[in-house]
């Protein structure tokens, strides 16, 4: 009973490259997006998966949630093979893993109101019609929105509100595992913090297992207990979040940490000498730090 809730065993995913003609002539090559990746996620873990474009982190998310099938290897959900589960497309297992998407403008159907979007989701979970309205209100409260949002269309919402609705839609299925693929990277800085705090609170309160896919190391540090660093389809480093970020072993992790903007502490050009600026000793402190 204490096994991992989500487990990847030597999972690879490759995509064919080239057009139909190339394929017919046998000239096609394949792009390997994920190369024999193994990963165990325990119940209640909050795992950050970091990497740059081409690292395979989004491919991994798609496999973990059952959007795609691995080319080889196996994905297990609570010990059961995902490939087996996927035979029953709408099976009860669907509820157990849900996803929050990156781009809040394409994550919601532009022609469906918030209430309809959530209502349809509840219908698929089998919630009777009479209870849906009250559940919608509960979901909206859960993500910090009021019931007045219900009749609105996505374009009438702010980016932060859309992302909350995306989260509410995933939670409407009452999942055990939530996979969030760059959920805040399209948001304004001041809204990122709101959504991150919300994710953090909900994970705790609902006992969710969270896979947080991001390129932002500082956000991962705030939210996650474990971190997995990926590069070119393989995991280069993983471990406790604070351990890895404070004492990175792999040169790539070190490079990622070095690339995070650090404000004055990461100063690349000397500060201009300013007669009227701050007190002299303060300035010297800054120079010393840089």
């Amino acid at each position, binding site marked *: 009973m204490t096994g991992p809730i989500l487990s990847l065993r030597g999972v690879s995913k490759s995509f064919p490259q080239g057009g*139909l003609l190339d394929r017919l002539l046998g000239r096609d090559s394949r792009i390997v997006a994920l190369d024999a990746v193994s990963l165990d996620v325990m119940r209640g873990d909050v795992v950050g998966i970091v990497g740059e474009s081409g690292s395979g982190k989004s491919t991994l998310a798609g496999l973990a*949630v*059952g*959007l795609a099938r691995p080319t080889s290897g196996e994905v297990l959900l609570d010990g059961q093979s995902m490939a087996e589960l996927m035979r029953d*497309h*709408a*099976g009860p297992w*669907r*509820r157990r*893993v*849900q*996803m929050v*998407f*990156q*781009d809040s403008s*394409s*994550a*919601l*159907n*532009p*022609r469906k109101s918030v209430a309809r979007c959530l209502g*349809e*989701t509840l219908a*698929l*979970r089998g919630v009777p019609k009479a209870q849906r309205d009250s559940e919608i209100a509960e979901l909206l409260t859960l993500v910090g929105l009021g019931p007045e949002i219900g009749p609105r269309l996505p*374009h009438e919402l702010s980016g932060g509100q859309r992302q909350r609705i*995306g989260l509410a*839609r*995933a939670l409407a*299925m009452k999942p055990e595992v939530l996979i969030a693929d760059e959920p805040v990277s399209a948001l304004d800085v001041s809204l990122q913090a709101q959504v991150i705090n919300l994710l953090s609170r909900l994970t705790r309160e609902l006992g969710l297992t969270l896979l947080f896919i991001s390129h932002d190391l500082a956000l991962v540090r705030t939210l996650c207990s474990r971190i997995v660093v990926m590069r070119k389809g393989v995991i280069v480093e993983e471990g406790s979040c604070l351990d890895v970020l404070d004492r990175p072993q792999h040169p790539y992790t070190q490079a990622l940490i070095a690339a995070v903007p650090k404000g004055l502490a990461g100063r690349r050009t000397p500060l201009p000498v300013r007669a009227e600026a701050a007190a002299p000793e303060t300035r010297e402190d800054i120079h010393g730090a840089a």
Partner: protein
Amino acid sequence: MSDLRKALNGLDWSGWLGAGIVGLIVLAAIFAPLIAPYDPLALNIEDRLAAPDASHWLGTDQGGRDVLSRILFGARASLSVGIGAVLIGALIGVSAGIFAAYKGGLGEQAVMRIFDGVASIPLLVWAIAIVGILGVGPLPVGPLLLPNEVKIIVLVGCLFSPVFARVTYAVAKRVAGADYVRARFLQGASHWQIVVGDVLPNCLSPIIVQGTLLVAIGIVIEASISFVGLGVQPPQPSWGTMLSDARSAIYSGEWWLPVFPGLAISLTVIGFNLLGDAVRELFDPRSEARTLVA
């Protein structure tokens, strides 16, 4: 409802002009029996080839039939072919386009290549060639006898389907890849629910624009095949057969015989084109900024 009101508010003057022309012609076609001053088929040898005057506003033809009445009744043939063909073409093309975009893989390739093949030969050439082969008159399909006009509608509709398929495919490909479609899939929604509830509604705008523009082309095709004698059969009035009958009149001076049916065709085509352009403008994401700011 509010969508429609917003759409009407967004129309510019040329859009209104197009909508006005199309509206008038549709009304004329529907109420032709009420507003036509004469029976379009009634021969009247005494009055043959009368120039436009107070009793025959647009003159009469070689059989003494009233040109205005024939144009009003001819609008029925033109519009039913134009609109009917667009509906049939949309039904086939939209289904195929969405299927290809949503299914992907070999099915996608097969469907789209077939439509590409059909689309590689001009519409009018196809239309005349096929009607030529099938022959004039009703077409027996199994136990059914397809009336001549329905045959033409179905034929032109089939020829329109590649246009709809390609337009639909292009937008459906994008919609099918959107995260909200993925989210529905992850909730366990059936393919049918996803296609009807999420993919199709978000593909409608370009399909409607294309449909409006194709009505105009359908009208020209009907006129063309009727002109060469393969379409609507005499004595039934059609703008194409009227033009065809007027060929000799060009030399003998009865100018009203070719001019008025020709004007009717041009006006209708212009009307649908203006309307189509205005609808396109309305759905254009760039024009979204205007409503966004307001």
